[in-house]
Each structure stands twice: as structure tokens, then as C-alpha cells.
């Protein structure tokens, strides 16, 4: 959003607004409004994914992806394509949330960057998790999404969903007494690719790489050092 705004702004600055023809100005403003609409569409798309995922409507959730979109949740590995994504989601439980279950994956805090051509976008989201099954303790979880989107024939879709689990704990015990490790790749339905990054959830610490540049300095955040982790061998 911001970079595209800057690009348009740079254009506008290069040629003072009043030196531009009415047609040029209308075209520039139309572009800026399109990017605002794109950002809203991406926000709605990802929020909708969350509402489908909560109720285990896997068919609906998988339909939001591009034909060769990818889905990666924690350390389960990467699933590619709508069919594989839908089957990967079945590993969480059957289609349709069962009675006595809670599967909330709340999505908040989006930082959305739409490419200047309005055809792709990236976003970081905060994911808050509340899980429950009858007869078992509840689970609190939290994590970060770093996702990508593509506009195909005028419709925004998820081209890459990557959820980095930060931490999961038993509701009653809390972090000081319970740290639930992530699931590994499934033997029943193995992923198309291994996990793209190897890391541990809490008590381990990991920084999901930032897709956006620092909003004030404009510098890349790619060089932020990862904290060391003896268990996964990261120095």
C-alpha cells in the first residue's frame, strides 16, 4: 500500500498536479483507489478464511486458494494445490466442526502490502487460537501468519499461507507449566514439501521473517538476526 502510494506520489511530485492533464490525474487517482480496494479485498479474504477454518469448513477454506497455492501450518510441511490443502486440513479433524469442539483461529493486526501493479499482495497477521474438545482441557495458542495473495481474473485468492506457531499451552496450566510442541509432518498424508523453515514453538523463540520494509526508515527487515536455538542447531 505504502510503497504504491509513494510510487504514485513520486509521479505526482515529479509532475506537479496542476501541470498534469485532467485525464492523467483521473488515471492516477483511479489507480490509488484501486489499491485501497485491493487492500480491503485481501483483508476480507483472509478474515473469511479464518471464519471458515474456525468451523472446519475445509472445502470452503481450500476454495480460497489459487490452483497451485500452498498451505503450511507450523512444522506440518507444505501442501500444494487445493486438493492437497483440503486433505491436509482434514488432518486437524473431519469436515464440519463436531459438537463440543472449539477451533477458533482469530486473525487480527494485518499489515497488508499490495504490489503496485495490483496483482499480488503480502500480509503479516497475528493469529490467536482457542481450542477445546469435550472432556479435555482447553488450549490457548498464538502465532504469526506471513501470507501471499494473487488477483486472478479480478478475484483475490490466497497463493501462499504460512502460519508460524509461536506458542501453545494448556488453558489451566499456562506457559510456566505447559508448552505444547508443534505437530510434525503427517505419516498418513505426507506433505508435498518438508517444512520451509525449521524452528520450535515456545519455549523456543523464532522470528517469522517480515515481508514488509520498516515503515519509517524504509529499510529491509531481512537482516534481523534469529535468536540461537540449541535444539534445532541454530547458532
Amino acid at each position, binding site marked *: 500500500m505504502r510503497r504504491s502510494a509513494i510510487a504514485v506520489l513520486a509521479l505526482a511530485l515529479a509532475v506537479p498536479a496542476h501541470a498534469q492533464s485532467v485525464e492523467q490525474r483521473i488515471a492516477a487517482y483511479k489507480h490509488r483507489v484501486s489499491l485501497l480496494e485491493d487492500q480491503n479485498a485481501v483483508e476480507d479474504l483472509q478474515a473469511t478464511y479464518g471464519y471458515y477454518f474456525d468451523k472446519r469448513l475445509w472445502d470452503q477454506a481450500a476454495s480460497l486458494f489459487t490452483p497451485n497455492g500452498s498451505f503450511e501450518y507450523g512444522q506440518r510441511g507444505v501442501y500444494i494445490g487445493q486438493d492437497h490443502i483440503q486433505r491436509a486440513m482434514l488432518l486437524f479433524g473431519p469436515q464440519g466442526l463436531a459438537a463440543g469442539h472449539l477451533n477458533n483461529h482469530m486473525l487480527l493486526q494485518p499489515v497488508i502490502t499490495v504490489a503496485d501493479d495490483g496483482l499480488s499482495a503480502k500480509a503479516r497477521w497475528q493469529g490467536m487460537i482457542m481450542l477445546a474438545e469435550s472432556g479435555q482441557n482447553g488450549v490457548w495458542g498464538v502465532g504469526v501468519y506471513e501470507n501471499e495473495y494473487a488477483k486472478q481474473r479480478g478475484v483475490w485468492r490466497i497463493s501462499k499461507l504460512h502460519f508460524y506457531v*509461536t506458542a501453545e499451552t494448556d488453558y489451566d496450566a499456562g506457559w510456566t507449566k505447559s508448552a505444547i510442541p508443534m505437530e510434525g509432518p503427517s505419516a498418513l498424508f505426507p506433505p508435498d514439501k518438508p517444512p520451509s523453515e525449521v524452528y520450535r514453538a515456545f519455549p523456543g*523463540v523464532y522470528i517469522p521473517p517480515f515481508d514488509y520494509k*520498516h515503515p519509517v526508515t524504509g529499510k529491509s527487515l531481512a537482516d534481523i538476526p534469529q535468536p540461537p536455538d540449541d535444539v534445532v542447531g541454530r547458532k
Partner: protein
Amino acid sequence: MMGRVLLAIGLAVIAAPALAQQTPEQRLDELDQRITRLEDMNQVEKVQRVYGYFVDKGQWTQLSELFADDATLEIGGKGLFLGKKRVLEYMQTAFGADGPKEGLLANHMQFQPIVDIAPDGKTAWVRSRAFVMSVGGWGLPLYEDEFVKQDGVWKFKRESGPFTMYSSWKGWGHDALNNTWPDKFDPPPDLPPTTVYLTYPAYWIVPFHYPNPVTGKPFPVEPVGAYEAPPGTPEQEASLKVGRLADGTQPIAQPPRD
């Protein structure tokens, strides 16, 4: 946000007869201003959210770069820190060197923003909140932050994050932490707190930077909240003793007491 966009459109409709007499250039100037305002609102929201992601991973240097050189920071009851450098000093002294620490979780999830851009487009305000999920337990800061646009870039001008409630993992039905205070931990602030208030089970209504969106009336200026009174009054003196033990200390993570 939507409401205000509608309001803007409403105003435009009311102003329609005047528009008919404007040149296309004048109408485009107005359109430019409206689009810029929407872009500014998005950008200000984004800076607030990026702040949250930096807090989560202990990225204090990156976080301090979100602040203007002469910005101020005030969190909880700790007092005022003046300038970008002091923001960094505060974070690194109070919470350690840059980077997340093994076994530590301190997520400050950001949501519910109300953004307003000043008519001149140079400053902005946000009321928003964070939901803190940490190894220590739960927390609810509420922000009333001011932003400034310098050379086309939005930065924090004033960050203010008074606490609503902090509790241990057992929850706010079990215990509550008192508000922080200037000498609770290092570093000491540059100036004392702008407002003395207590957190849950007491409360203080943080003044709203914007009027009621339906009635258009501003938020009442007099202090509102339990135990709130102007500095120097007996009521305010008494409020300082609420939640403290006889020796004047404020116990942490004890059951709420009045």
C-alpha cells in the same frame, strides 16, 4: 472508519451545488485530498501494528525507529520518556537487549483502532488497544497515540499506553497487578506520569481524542473513573493508598483488594 467515510461522502453530497461551479481541477484537488486521507489512515494503522510486532520479538532498535526524534512515550504509570533515544533506552534497560528470549513470551496483539487524520493531513491520532498474552499472564493496555507526518512518512509523535488491567495467568477473577510507577524498575522517567490513575479493579476512562461519532459531542473533559481526582486534592491523595499495603508498597499478583 466506514462511518467516517460515509460522513465524508455525505458532506460531499451536501456540497454538490458548489461542486457544479468548480473547475475539474478543483474537483480533482478535493478528490486527491480524500484519497490521501484514506491512504494516511491505512498507514497510521500500519505503524501502530508494526509497533506491536516489534514488541512481540523484542526488536527495540527497530521499534525506536518508528518514533519521531522529539516523540514522547508513556506506558502504564511509569512516567514520560522524552525523545527517540530515550524510547530505546527505556526498552533496552527495562526489557533487555534486542531479540526474543528463550522461554519468554510477551505478545502485544494490536486491534480495534480508531484513526483520525487532522484536516491539514500533518498529524493523526489513534485510539486502539493491545491484548497482552505473556508468560507473566494477561494484560490490557489502551493507546491514545499521536502521529506526525514528516517528509511524507508517518511516525509516532506521542505514545501513551495506560493500563486497564494486568493479571497473572490465573486470570483477573483471581488476582490483579497494580499499575506500574516511576521507580518500580529502571530506567527512571524524564518526567513524572501525566496522570495518576489505578488499574483494575479500579478504573480510569482514558480521554477520547475524538467526539461521539453520532452526537458529535466531545468526550467530557473532567476526569472520569474510580479513584480519579485532580492532583493535590485529598481525594487524589487517598487514591494513592488504594491497593497499597500499610508500608506503602504495592504487592504484585495478589488478589484484588480495595
